[in-house]
């Protein structure tokens, strides 16, 4: 890494992000992993890069266009930084394709997963695919004539397109004609060949490419080459403008389709002429052009990696366990009323959270449900339950965050359908994204009104809840209920912020509270008390927080941070951050929980949170910091933190130069893999609960059989 002139105190956030993606890529390169697991990591690396180009690189290029030249706090000036990013991205893509084309391709082939090429097919198969083209592809693909950069038609980003060069007709001295063929995304990337043995697929662009001349009758095709463009998506909604948010969000989606191209990916088989034409058409230079030796859009292979069958090519699955605190048949409200419940997903099932909303919808004692929806699955059972509840005359309030990036289109869909069923839908707060994850169920019970609250670190999305590690805390303690309701009153605009009893919310008090907690440890340490801070977060960017942590380290506070992604804090720098340890775990599940620990002289405070330590989370999002009071839940969080920092299998430690090295087990010791341990814990808890459950036989009585 080329060093900037000034000794950096902070890691650059873009480079730190790239370093995270390198760690993901490492998993893909890890020969000890089964091949489909590796393929999955290669796909994730690609999908991550897509997002990086869409939201970060675009912004940086913009900075450069605005001739901003000052260095940021990590010492990088935009020009140099962009060059470094381009260098690293190109290297990363090269490694990725190197692995894919040399290593994985062979292994997959040997295991029976084969990509077939059009020029090496049996006649029967060729005929079959010709039929597929004629009947299924031809009717829906669209060729578009390309006249020049000034008259470029609307082309979708992140989609594999075909660039077609038609032969110039020398006799009539015409210029060559160009066209682009759009292959609708819904056709899928892979066409399965009807071969019994193994899994044989052809890429859809290969099939279309083979028969592309049928789209241009009478014009010989000189070249057909797949390419893909990435557009700058870094444009927020201007909320200060008049008009309603829903309409403006639709405008953003249109604008995103039209924004400038920040990356061009082309098959390396492209001719010089066509490449020249493409770079000119999309206004990109060599830095932003990626010539790849294999299939474009490796993210699509995520689907292939997850297809049914071939389990021997994957690690043994870790299916979510039924949490012992929640009996499968009893009421979830009774379970919460008995005891606060802490869940660790996806080792423990997300079902209880979905069930809480579903039971609430059907429970005649429930008066109201309030819920924040940020990113939700398609056909979400939670949304269905909310609509059902509203149909049953319960008061349902849904804060639907239209601004959740890339999910806008889907979000607009629910929002409208929820509104139609009578749910009061609120589109977040002006100028802020609502990122907090909280759901309140108001229930009328014999003892009075009781509020059941779920706080989470992840979205209400039962699909991602199987892939991301998250924490749920469910309680009906009055202080939490009162705070959660007050929080909803605040976001719905019913009330101005009131002082919370337990919670802290961004952008009001969360940042101040965090700083206060960090400074509290610093003070205690200075007064000779033992002091310790531990955190599991996804990103650490905020300079105020980092500086506070540096001061704490200098005072002697022991700080352990488990930061999955971007970490601008540099640990272990003599005199600056000697007492800080930063690890990052990249394993089967995406680390996503936010758990905080402050030692407080031996009476530790534990929190879960929706917020990462980034300015955008602390200043421009609505986030929550939730203290966990229940003793058993606290012990469990502490235990979980312990396990993470003990990881010697999938953890990497950041060194004082900002790079990451794998944490190795002590000589002779077995590596400790925290995610595996969590899974085993969940299984064990489930087994224990089952074994102590009294066996009661339920006789079938005659009366019960009557209709």
């Amino acid at each position, binding site marked *: 890494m080329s060093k900037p002139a000034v000794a950096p105190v902070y890691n650059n956030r873009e480079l730190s992000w790239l370093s995270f993606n390198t760690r993901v890529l490492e998993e893909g390169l890890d020969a000890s992993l089964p091949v489909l697991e590796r393929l999955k990591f290669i796909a994730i690396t690609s999908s991550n890069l897509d997002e990086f180009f869409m939201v970060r690189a675009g912004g940086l290029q913009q900075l450069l266009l605005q001739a901003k030249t000052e260095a940021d706090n990590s010492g990088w000036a935009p020009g140099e930084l962009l060059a470094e990013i381009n260098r690293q991205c190109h290297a990363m893509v090269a490694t990725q394709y190197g692995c894919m084309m040399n290593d994985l391709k062979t292994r997959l082939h040997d295991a029976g997963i084969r990509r077939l090429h059009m020029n090496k097919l049996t006649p029967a198969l060729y005929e079959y695919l010709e039929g597929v083209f004629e009947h299924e592809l031809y009717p829906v693909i669209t060729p578009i004539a390309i006249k020049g950069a000034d008259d470029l038609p609307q082309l979708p980003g992140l989609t594999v397109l075909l660039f077609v060069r038609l032969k110039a007709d020398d006799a009539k001295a015409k210029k060559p004609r160009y066209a682009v063929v759009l292959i609708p995304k819904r056709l899928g990337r892979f066409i399965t060949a009807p071969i019994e043995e193994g899994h044989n697929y052809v890429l859809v662009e290969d099939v279309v490419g083979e028969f592309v001349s049928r789209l241009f009758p009478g014009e010989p095709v000189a070249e057909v080459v797949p390419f893909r463009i990435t557009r700058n998506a870094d444009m927020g909604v201007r909320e200060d403008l008049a008009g309603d948010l829903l309409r403006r969000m639709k405008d953003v989606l249109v604008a995103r389709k039209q924004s400038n191209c920040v990356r061009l990916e082309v098959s390396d088989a492209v001719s010089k002429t066509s490449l020249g034409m493409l770079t000119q058409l999309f206004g990109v230079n060599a830095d932003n052009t990626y010539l790849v030796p294999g299939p474009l859009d490796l993210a699509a292979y995520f689907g292939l990696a997850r297809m049914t069958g071939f389990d021997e090519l994957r690690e043994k699955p870790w299916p979510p366990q039924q949490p012992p605190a929640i009996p499968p048949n009893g009421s979830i409200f009774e379970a919460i009323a008995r005891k606060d419940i802490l869940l660790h997903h996806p080792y423990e099932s997300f079902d209880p959270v979905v069930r809480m909303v579903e039971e609430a919808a059907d429970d005649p004692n429930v*008066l*109201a449900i309030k819920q924040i929806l940020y990113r939700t699955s398609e056909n979400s059972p939670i949304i269905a339950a909310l609509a059902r509840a509203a149909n049953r005359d319960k*008061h349902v309030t849904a804060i639907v965050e239209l601004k959740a990036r890339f999910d806008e289109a889907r979000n607009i869909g629910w929002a409208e359908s929820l509104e139609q069923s009578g749910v*009061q839908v609120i589109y977040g707060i002006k100028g802020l994204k609502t990122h907090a994850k909280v759901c309140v169920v*108001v229930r*009328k019970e*014999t*003892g*009075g*009104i009781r509020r059941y609250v779920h706080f989470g670190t992840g979205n209400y999305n039962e699909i991602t809840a199987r892939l991301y590690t998250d924490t749920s805390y469910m309680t009906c303690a*009055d202080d939490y209920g*009162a705070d959660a*309701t*007050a929080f909803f*009153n605040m976001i*719905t*605009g*019913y*009330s*101005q*912020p*009131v*002082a919370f*009893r337990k919670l802290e919310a961004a952008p*009001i*008090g969360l940042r101040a509270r965090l700083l206060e907690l960090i400074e509290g440890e610093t003070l205690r340490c200075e007064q000779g008390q033992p002091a310790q801070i531990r955190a599991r977060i996804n990103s650490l960017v905020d300079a105020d927080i980092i500086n506070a942590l540096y001061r704490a380290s200098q005072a002697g506070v022991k700080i352990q941070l488990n930061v999955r992604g971007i970490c601008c804090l540099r640990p272990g720098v003599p005199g600056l951050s000697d007492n800080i340890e930063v690890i990052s775990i990249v394993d089967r599940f995406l680390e996503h929980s936010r758990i905080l620990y402050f030692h407080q002289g031996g009476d530790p405070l534990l929190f879960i949170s929706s917020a990462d330590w980034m300015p955008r989370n602390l200043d421009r999002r609505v986030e929550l910091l939730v203290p966990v009071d229940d003793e058993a839940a606290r012990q469990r969080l502490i235990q979980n933190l312990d396990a993470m920092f003990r990881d010697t299998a999938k953890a990497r430690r950041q060194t004082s130069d900002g790079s990451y090295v794998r944490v190795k087990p002590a000589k002779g010791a077995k590596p400790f893999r925290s995610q595996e341990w969590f899974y085993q814990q969940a299984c064990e808890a489930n087994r224990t609960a089952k074994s102590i459950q009294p066996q009661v036989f339920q006789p079938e009585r005659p009366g019960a059989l009557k209709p």
Partner: protein
Amino acid sequence: MTPPSPSEPARPATGKDTPAGPRLFAVIDVGSTAVRMEIAELLDNGAIHTIEQLHHAVHLGKDSFTLGRIQQSTIEECVNILKNYRRVMEEYGVTAPNQIRAVATSSVREASNRDTFLDRVYIATRINLEVIEEAEETRLTYLGVQDILARHPELQKGDLLVVEVGGGDSELLVVQDGFVTFSNTYRLGSLRMRETLDVRHTPAARLYETFLKHIQLTVDQIHRSVPVEKTACLVAISGDARFAATHLVADWADKSIARIDVKSFSAFARKIASLEVDELVRKYRMSFQEAETVGPALMGYAQLAKVFGVEQFVVPKSSLRHGLLREAIGSGAWNEGLESQLIHSAVSLGHKYSFDERHGTQVADLSVRLFRELQPDHQLGVRHERLLRVAAILHEVGLFIHSRSHHKHSMYIILNSDLFGMSRSDMNLIGLIARYHRRAAPQPYHEGYALLSRDDRMVVSKLAAILRVADALDRNHMQQVRELSFARARGSFTILVHDVEDLSLERVALKEKGSMFEEVYGMKIGLEVATSNEGLMPDV
């Protein structure tokens, strides 16, 4: 009399026997800087459990105190807030009129278009917003702190100043040995001050001095009007006081009251009052409306503390809304505690004019006895009984001026006094009842009486007629008449007096004073000594 204690809610602890009355209540307080709502439920053990607290800043006071009216935009702002509150209430099924109490204070009270405002609110939200008078505000405030006083008996020893510096007015109560001996409302308001002093262009550095001058002047006037010179303790009620407590008392969240020494409180007040509004907003995360009033309000408390020689501030967590809640739930509506507060404050007023306490109390007791006996005839309720009792206690205070026309003196003394929890219109009725305890019967041209509604005129006549009879029964001011029973025959009503030999003086008096009774109730009134036999009859 023993110091009052807040009456425990009379509901039984078991769910089975709980009356089917509402358990959830909403109270709304439309103040000069904010509209606040609290939703609470009554638990089986009688405790009140707060479920939701909402507040929203408004410009009501700004409009009223500068323009004298509420602007259309402000009306709509309030309507929108109340519509949202309505939604929250509906979530809990709080929709019946007896579950909702919504009151507005000085800023609406003083607005020339208050009726337009109230109508608009009602039409848009079906919330019946009630403008409460100053005295009512004081009573509710007291109701709010009542249980705090009960829970902290040490506060009841000695004198106590209970103050709420609001946006428009300040309420002040003097509590002596647990009794409210004085209460009044003063036009010292944090927002009123800011608006009338027009400090928009005053630099922050001079702001403190400007407010101080104004506050000192008003506070001196207040000090002179209050019958107590020094109190050791000041109970400060209001959001501003609670704000100070949050910042001065570390573990305030876990306590029901905060105790702050005067020095720290005053220093804090000075610090806050010297900060620019936007600085306050940024630093303390408050709304602009709150930021504009918190400084002057805290200074108001601090200055009052100074002139009264207060040593300690007590800030309870309760507010006017707690009073409203207690009243809505029924545990506070003129409970015994409040009733004895009122009697005590009437007696204190009487002493100010050297009245014959024993006669006043005797006549009051006899009046109430008669009032209850005659309930089927007059069909009046407890509020009227209360008015009659107070009028009876005070009917002769006018003697302080002169014995000639003393009934008229009684009336204007009463009209120009404040009694705990009595509104202006209550005082007007009390004054008239006292006035008609002797001499001329009510005439349409009599001052005060002329403007009464038909119903209120009837009330005055019915109650004054009773008062006259009761007064006659203690003609000699000897409190001889103790035990009564009654006998009714066609067209006559006879009072039977036990254990008294000679009633000739009383009979003469009754002849002189009973004619009004006969006219109003349509019954001849008689007075007899009860024979022992009759004395055994149940006096139903």
